[in-house]
C-alpha cells in the first residue's frame, strides 16, 4: 500500500529534520521525504495539517497486564514499540513464554512487543534463566524488572554470562536492604507524614555495585528508572570512564516530587519513589542533555489496589497514553525544542536498544506518529483505552493529542 502524509510538520530528531513536508510510505517502509519516489501513486492520503509527523514513540518500559487493551492504549498514545518488563505473572523466564508473547503481539497487530527476558529464574535473583533461548524467542535484553539481585556473586555471574553473548542487562538500581521497608523518599515529606523512607543511598549503592561489575565483566548495562541527583552523577562518571552504561527515567519523575504526595495521595506512590526538587531538577537536566532516555513506566493498577492507605497502595501510574503530552509538558518547562524533546522518546530509546528504529530514514519501517501539539484533552477514565486508570493527573488537561498512528505502514489508530 502506498501512503502519503501531507501538510504535516515532519520531525525526525535523528536526522535533524524539522520542516513542513510530505512523507511517502511504500510496502510498510519509508520511501521518501518531500519528493515522491519515482512512480509513486498514493493509495491512501493522510492530511496532517496542523500536526507533527514524527517517528512512532518507543517506550522503554510498559507493563501489558491485559495485552489487547494495553497495546491499543499504546498506539492511541502514539507508541509503536513497547519494551515489556519480565515481571508479569508468570515471570518471563522461559523461551516459550517469550515466544507466545511475541506471537500474541503480532496477532493483535498494533504496537510492536519487545519483551525483556528474566535474568534469573522466577526473577528470584539466584539461578540464571536460559538467556540464549530467550533471546532466540525474541527477547531484546534481560532484566530483573524492579526486583533486586541481593546476592552479588549471582549478579556477577549473570553479567559475565550475558557478556559472553553480548546481551544487555537492564537493572533497576535499588539496594534491597535499604529499600525493603520504605514507601517514600527519605526526605522532609516522609519525615513529616510519618512514611517509612527509602534513602538515596539505596540507589547510589546499587549503581556503584553495578558499575563495578560492569568494569569487571564488560557487560552492557542499562539502568532503569533513575530517581536521584546523586544517581545521575554516578552515571555521568561511569560514562566519562567509557563504560557501556546507559540509563532512563520515568516521565513522571521529571515532573513530580515528594511534595506531590500531598495528603497521602496514593497516586503519587511510585517505585522508585518521587524524590526531592533537587533530584527532579538533576534528572530533568540529564534528560535534556541527552544522558537519559525517557519512558512511561506504564503500570496499570486497579482501583482496589490503588485506593488504599499510601503504604498499602501498589506503586505506579498509567503511562502509555500520557507519555507524549507529559514529555511535551516537561520540554516546555525545560525550554527544549520539539525535536530535542521527541528525541528522548524516539531515537534515544532506539539507541539504548541498539535496534534500528526511532527515525524516518528512507528504508526504515514506517512506524509513524501523527499528533496535534495544540489539541487539549482531559484525563478521565473514559478518555483512556488502557485498563489502568490510575494517575496523579486525573482530571487534568493534557496538551498533545495523537491523531493517527502507523506501524509498519498500516494505520493502527485513528484515521
Amino acid at each position, binding site marked *: 500500500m502506498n501512503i502519503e502524509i501531507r501538510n504535516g510538520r515532519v520531525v525526525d530528531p535523528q536526522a535533524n529534520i524539522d520542516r513542513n513536508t510530505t512523507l511517502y510510505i511504500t510496502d510498510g517502509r519509508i520511501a521518501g521525504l518531500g519528493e515522491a519516489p519515482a512512480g509513486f501513486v498514493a493509495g491512501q492520503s493522510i492530511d496532517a495539517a496542523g500536526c507533527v509527523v514524527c517517528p512512532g514513540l518507543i517506550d522503554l518500559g510498559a507493563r501489558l497486564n491485559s495485552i489487547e487493551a494495553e497495546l491499543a492504549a499504546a498506539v492511541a498514545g502514539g507508541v509503536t514499540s513497547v519494551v515489556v518488563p519480565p515481571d508479569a505473572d508468570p515471570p518471563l523466564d522461559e523461551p516459550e513464554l517469550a515466544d507466545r508473547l511475541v506471537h500474541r503481539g503480532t496477532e493483535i497487530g498494533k504496537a510492536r512487543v519487545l519483551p525483556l527476558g528474566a535474568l534469573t529464574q522466577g526473577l528470584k535473583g539466584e539461578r540464571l534463566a536460559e538467556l540464549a533461548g530467550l533471546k532466540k524467542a525474541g527477547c531484546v535484553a534481560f532484566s530483573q524488572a524492579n526486583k533486586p539481585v541481593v546476592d552479588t556473586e549471582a549478579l556477577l555471574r549473570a553479567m559475565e554470562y550475558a557478556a559472553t553473548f553480548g546481551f544487555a542487562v537492564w537493572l533497576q538500581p535499588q539496594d534491597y536492604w535499604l529499600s525493603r521497608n520504605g514507601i517514600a523518599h527519605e526526605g522532609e515529606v516522609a519525615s*513529616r*507524614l*510519618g512514611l517509612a*523512607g527509602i534513602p538515596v543511598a539505596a540507589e547510589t549503592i546499587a549503581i556503584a555495585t553495578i558499575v563495578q561489575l560492569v568494569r569487571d565483566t564488560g557487560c552492557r548495562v542499562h539502568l532503569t528508572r533513575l530517581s536521584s541527583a546523586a544517581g545521575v552523577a554516578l552515571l555521568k562518571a561511569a560514562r566519562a570512564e567509557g563504560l557501556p552504561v546507559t540509563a532512563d527515567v520515568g516521565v513522571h519523575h521529571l515532573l513530580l516530587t515528594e511534595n506531590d504526595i500531598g495528603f*497521602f495521595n*496514593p497516586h503519587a506512590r511510585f517505585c522508585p519513589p518521587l524524590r526531592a526538587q533537587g533530584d527532579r531538577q538533576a534528572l530533568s537536566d540529564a534528560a535534556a542533555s541527552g544522558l537519559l532516555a525517557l519512558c512511561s513506566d506504564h503500570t496499570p493498577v486497579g482501583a*482496589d489496589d490503588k*485506593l488504599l*492507605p499510601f*503504604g498499602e497502595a501498589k506503586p505506579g501510574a498509567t503511562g502509555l497514553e500520557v507519555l507524549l503530552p507529559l514529555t511535551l509538558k516537561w520540554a516546555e518547562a525545560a525550554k527544549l525544542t520539539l525535536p530535542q524533546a521527541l528525541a528522548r522518546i524516539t531515537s534515544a530509546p532506539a539507541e539504548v536498544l541498539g535496534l534500528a528504529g526511532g527515525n524516518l530514514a528512507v528504508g526504515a519501517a514506517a512506524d509513524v506518529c501523527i499528533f496535534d501539539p495544540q489539541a487539549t484533552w482531559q484525563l478521565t477514565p473514559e478518555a483512556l483505552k488502557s485498563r489502568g486508570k490510575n494517575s496523579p493527573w486525573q482530571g487534568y488537561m493534557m496538551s498533545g493529542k495523537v491523531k493517527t498512528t502507523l506501524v509498519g505502514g498500516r494505520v493502527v489508530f485513528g484515521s
Partner: protein
Amino acid sequence: MHNPQLNKHGELIHLMSIEGLPKGILTQILDTAASFMEISAREVKKVPLLRGKSVFNLFFENSTRTRTTFEIAAKRLSADVINLDINKSSASKGETLLDTIDNLVAMHANLFVVRHASSGAPYLIAEHLQRIGRDDVHVVNAGDGRHAHPTQGLLDMYTIRHYKKDFTQLRVAIVGDILHSRVARSDIHALTTLGVPEVRAIGPETLLPKHLDKLGVQVFHDMNEGLKDCDVIIMLRLQNERMNGALLPSAGEYFRHYGLTPQKLALAKPDAIVMHPGPMNRGVEIHSAVADGSQAVILPQVTFGIAVRMAVMSIVAGN
C-alpha cells in the same frame, strides 16, 4: 492546598492531624475541654450533645486503652457507641477499607474514630466521604501509622496548659523513639503552633527522623544537655520491636543513655513536669522513682484525655 479537615468556612469537620490547623482551633478545643472537665465531677456524667448520634470506633490496630477513653467520651456526650475490631472481622476476609466505610455509613454512622497501622488512612476515608457526598459524617483519627495521634497531642497540650499556663515561655523536651512516634509528631506540631519557643528532641540517631529541624525542633543526642532547664519532659514509649538489634542493641543500653532517672530529671527546672502517653515501660524509658514521683503528671493526662476527646467529638459533629 486546602486542608481536608476544615470546611469552606474554616471550621473543623474532621480531626486527622494537628498540622495545618490554626492556633484558634487548637485553643477552641482546649477551652471546650475545660468545660467538659467538670462534668466528670457530677452525679450525672452526661450531656445530651450527641444524643441519637452513632459513634463507630474503627480500630484496625488493637488498643484497649485509647478505645476505652473514646468510648467513655462518646457515652458522656450521650452518643451510641459501636466498637469494631477489624482484625477479627470483614477486613481480614478481604473487604477493602472503603467498602467497610460504605457499609457502616449505610448503618447510619455519624462519626468514625479510626486507628490504623498505615499513615494516611483517615485521609483516604475523609476523601471518600466527601466524594460520596456525606459531609454529615466525621472522622477523628485515633492514630495512623507513624503520622499523627492528634487527640493525644491535644491532651498533652491541655496538660501543659493546666500546669504551666503560658506556652510562650516554655522549653519542652520530647525524649525517645520519635522516628516511629505519631504522638511525637502531633506534639511537635501542637507545641510549635501554640507558640512554644523551644522544642527539643532527644534520642539516638537511629530513632530520630531526618529533617526534624525543618519542623522547628532542636535535636540533642546527649540527654544531659537536652534536659537542661526544661519545663516539660515528654517521655515516649520504646516499643519492644525496636529493641531487637538493628536500631538499638538493648533496653539496658537505651535506659543508661536515654532513660529518665531522678538524677537526669534534676537537670531540668525544679518544677518541671514529666509526661508520658502510656503505657510505660518502667526501667526502659523511665525510672519508677520518676514515674511515681511528684513531678509526674501521667495519671492526670488520662483524665484530661476524656475531656479533650469529648471536646473534639462535639466540635466536629456540630460543624
